């Protein structure tokens, strides 16, 4: 192509523009990127944390003689987690609570139940199911099954209070905060957060304690009634108990596969 004066001026103009723009692009690039020297922070699990494939609990109801034996469980749990004591039963918040056999195991209930079973109090809590229906229905993924240890956890930050999980849970293990709970917490535990109005809450298998290497509060207070361990570890205490004793679980026909086992 024959170079004309007109073409030369065009190319010269574009080149000048390019040189002029370069510093601006460099500045933007520098702002966008992070400093090359600082390493990225690391998020890791606590060193002494207890780990498992699926946490499970065995309740030895043979050891429950009266209400006095199980009362410390509820107290220990509710105190440590700032669970409010609602005066109105309809607004009740519960993480672990007593239940009669025919309520806890409606599918196993018979008309002429043994007197002993009839009078036994069954402590019930979130079963941390292996196939939890609450997780499936949650539209915001506020409740989810943690891959690392099988605990069904709630992220209160994400909960929008739609209460689908309340409807989905066949065990009534979830409670909804119709009111601000802070007035109803008798003794506040400063180390643990409370919840707010408009969120669902439930037992978290004391995942905050597990991360510090200690067993759940109810297990600690149970005096041997409750046993906690890894369901998929053949040497764990829960597996031994399940292998040696006849255990029942709540509403297993629903296919949720609860991880709380009851020795009757």
């Amino acid at each position, binding site marked *: 192509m024959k170079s004309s004066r007109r073409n030369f001026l065009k190319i010269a103009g574009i080149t000048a523009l390019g040189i002029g723009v370069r510093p601006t692009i460099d500045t933007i690039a520098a702002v966008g990127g992070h400093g090359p020297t600082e390493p990225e922070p690391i998020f890791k699990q606590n060193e002494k944390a207890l780990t498992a494939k699926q946490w499970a609990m065995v309740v030895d109801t043979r050891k429950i003689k009266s209400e006095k034996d199980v009362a410390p469980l509820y107290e220990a749990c509710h105190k440590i987690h700032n669970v409010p004591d609602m005066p109105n039963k309809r607004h009740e918040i519960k993480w672990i609570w007593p239940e009669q056999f025919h309520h806890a195991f409606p599918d196993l209930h018979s008309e002429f139940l043994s007197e002993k079973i009839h009078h036994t109090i069954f402590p019930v809590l979130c079963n941390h199911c292996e196939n939890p229906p609450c997780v499936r229905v949650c539209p915001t993924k506020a409740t989810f099954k943690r891959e690392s*240890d099988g605990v069904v956890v709630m992220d209160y930050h994400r909960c929008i209070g739609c209460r689908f999980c309340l409807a989905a849970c066949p065990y009534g293990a979830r409670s909804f905060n119709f009111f601000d709970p802070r007035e109803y917490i008798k003794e506040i535990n400063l*180390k643990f957060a409370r919840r707010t109005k408009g969120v669902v809450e439930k037992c978290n298998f004391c995942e905050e304690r597990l991360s510090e290497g200690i067993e759940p509060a109810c297990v600690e207070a149970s005096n041997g009634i409750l046993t906690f361990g890894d369901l998929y570890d053949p040497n764990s205490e829960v597996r031994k108990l399940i292998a040696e004793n006849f255990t029942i679980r709540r509403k297993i026909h629903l296919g949720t596969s609860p991880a709380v086992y009851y020795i009757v």
Partner: protein
Amino acid sequence: MYNKNLVIAGIVIFVILAAFPFWFNVVKSAPAPEVVLTEKAKAAKECVRSKEYMTTDHMVLLDTWRDSVLRDAKRTYVNPKGVEFNMSLSNTCLDCHSNKVEFCDRCHDYASVSPYCWDCHIDNPQGGTE
């Protein structure tokens, strides 16, 4: 042109009104708040991250912390200098910055942001004085 004087006067009034926030602030702008550090925070010298980072990005940090703790069960934070921290607003942040009113609230009020963190997380050790 008709009503020339009225139109010009109207434009001048409009400009003055529209610019009101600007010149109002020039005359009387609220001074940036002074945050008060507790003795413990002073003794610690450096926060989880550098002061500059914390000033601009503490909310980003807290957001990543909450996801890490709840969703991944990872509760230990190793900062770029290699120091480990327990990721907890109530137990780590507010343990040092226990003067929420003088430290957190002053800036939040100035910037007119009202985070709802304290609806649930207790401002240790005051214990629920919002």
